[in-house]
């Protein structure tokens, strides 16, 4: 039973690159937290610091309320699954699984029992005498998991464990990991760049960028209430559309956002719920619209918008429609807005096609990219 805390952790490498900057993260006992972010954002570094493979430059890391900054990896009672599995090539699967137990001087009889047990859970019983090179990618992955689980670690670390597998196997093992987590309830820190893994596995997800945490929350909350543009764009596939805009008062004396020469009137409720947004009247802001919030047919109180279609990608159950960005200046040339439309979109390329947006599904960000108001 273990809690983990990063308190103001900074990691500076010898060449003065900063991988982590004042990093704070708390992991509750038995919680499964996913660190997700683009490559180079410092997520693997955070994991390696927790494992003790790299020294901390500033700040503290605590396991069970004990500072472990100077504790060696051997003494931290953690287990880790590496991206390339790092199985010992010269040892059989059985020896690989036994290795951590041997290191802790586990009696032979208990060791055999534990190995058999973990092999049964991970469906490795028939492979115990094989060498790693005689295994498939998926089997190696399971051995790596087994080696981490066999000695009952207090914290379980996984560094992009699925990235070397093909898509089908990845989905299957993702489900297996979720199942194992549900039965064993280990405190887990899982690093990935894949938002699907993050959203499906994590009790909570920490989105990282440039060595800093952007937001930590449940997968649903991250998707529904992103704190900034980075999180909004990172989650969802495709991510949220961000359109430069201005907040105005329209002809009916209501709050509206301008998109090019058109405008979308915001509902009265939003202004009442969040009066602070009125101070942005007349100022440039950024409008966020999820691709799935744009539809081809009018529903409820959605507002029509004339858009120029660039191209359409038909994916079977849905289509991705690319539009010219309808901004009032400020966007880069070539910026597009993407919509996810259920079914097939007829007449691919033409100007002034009418699409519909629910004004209540619009996010508003300030110029610094921080959220002003959301649904």
């Amino acid at each position, binding site marked *: 039973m273990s809690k983990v805390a990063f308190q103001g952790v900074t990691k500076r490498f010898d060449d003065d690159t900063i991988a982590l900057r004042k990093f704070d993260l708390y992991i509750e006992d038995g919680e499964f937290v996913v660190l997700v972010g683009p490559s180079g954002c410092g997520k693997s570094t955070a994991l390696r610091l927790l*494992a003790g493979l790299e020294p901390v430059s500033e700040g503290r890391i605590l396991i069970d309320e004990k500072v472990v900054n100077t504790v060696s990896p051997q003494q*931290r009672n953690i*287990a880790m699954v590496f991206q390339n599995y*790092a199985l010992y090539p*010269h040892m059989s699967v059985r020896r690989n699984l036994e290795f951590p137990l041997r290191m802790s001087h586990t009696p032979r009889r208990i060791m055999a029992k534990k190995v058999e047990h973990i092999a049964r859970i991970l469906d490795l019983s028939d492979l115990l005498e094989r060498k790693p090179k005689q295994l498939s990618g998926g089997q190696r992955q399971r051995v790596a998991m087994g*080696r981490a689980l066999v*000695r009952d670690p207090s914290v379980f670390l996984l560094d992009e464990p699925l990235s070397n597998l093909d898509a089908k196997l990845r989905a299957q093992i993702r489900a297996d990991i979720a199942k194992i987590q549900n039965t064993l309830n280990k405190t887990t820190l899982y690093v990935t760049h894949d938002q699907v893994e993050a959203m499906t596995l994590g009790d909570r997800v920490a989105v990282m960028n440039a060595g800093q945490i952007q937001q930590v929350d449940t997968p649903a909350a991250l998707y529904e209430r992103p704190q900034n543009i980075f999180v909004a764009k990172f989650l969802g596939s495709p991510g949220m559309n961000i359109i430069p805009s201005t907040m105005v008062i329209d002809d009916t004396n209501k709050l509206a956002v301008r998109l090019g020469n058109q405008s979308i009137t915001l509902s009265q409720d939003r202004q009442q719920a969040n009066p602070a947004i009125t101070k942005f009247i007349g100022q440039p802001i950024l409008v966020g619209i999820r691709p799935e919030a744009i539809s081809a047919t009018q529903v409820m109180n959605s507002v029509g918008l004339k858009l120029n279609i660039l191209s359409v990608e038909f994916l079977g159950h849905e289509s991705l429609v690319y539009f010219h960005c309808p901004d009032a200046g400020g966007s880069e040339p070539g910026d597009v807005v993407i919509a996810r439309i259920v079914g097939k979109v007829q007449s691919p390329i033409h100007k002034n096609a009418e699409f519909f947006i629910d004004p209540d599904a619009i996010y508003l960000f300030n110029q610094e990219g921080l959220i002003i108001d959301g649904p």
Partner: protein
Amino acid sequence: MRNRKLIASLFVYGFLAVIVLGFLIPIGMMVAGSLKPDERVLLEAGTLRGYLPAEMNLQNYRDVFARVPFMRYLFNSVFITSAIVVFGLLVNSLAGYALARMQWPGRDRILLVVIALMIIPLEAIAVPLFYEVTLLGWRNTYLVQIVPFIANAFSIYLFYTFFLGLPRELEEAAKIDGAGAWRIFFTIIVPNAKAVFAAVAILTFLIQWGSFLWPLMVTNNEDVRPLPLGIASFYSLPPLQWGDIFAFGVMMVAPVLLVFLVFQRWFVKGVATTGVKG
């Protein structure tokens, strides 16, 4: 076009054949010479007949055992060379590992020194080294022929480059699994570095087996002298009998060939790091 290719490859193979002959001729002459009467060895050298051991017999081999303590030389060579190889593997692999993988102050400077030491030949330091071992009172011992050659800059460098290439995750996984530095080295690194151990072993063996100058300087007692000094002793034992010298030569080269045949599988074999990366 095809003709040109053919001619090019004929040229290449012809060139290689000349080189191979250049190496084989002396060996063939030695083997043939060891099997015929002394007086014919020089007489037939330089003729094609020199390579046909007519009237074959093993008299020269019997002579070698009668005239010099061959078995003593052989034992000395085997003992000295084996000791250098075994201790050398241990010391140099540990040094290479420390340079490649461990963090300690001054590491990069030491590495530079090691690389610089590779270009200094024994001849350059033979005299001061001689003075040193004389002060230590080590002359005429096995020790003096073994200790100075255990640590070897070139071996360290070979180990260093190999360990740099081993996936770091193997060590990190072992660390997290609870293994200490010594155990990681002996149970994870060494079993995955057989190729470089074999390469260093074979190189060290070959160099030390032929070692002549240093033993000549520091020994004057047949009891501790190795094979190369044994063969030299024929020059001071008139009459100069080339048949005996060749027979001695064959017996001196045979173990080298044997070692190479045993180890060449490892020597040639690339590095097997399978098991890492799907």
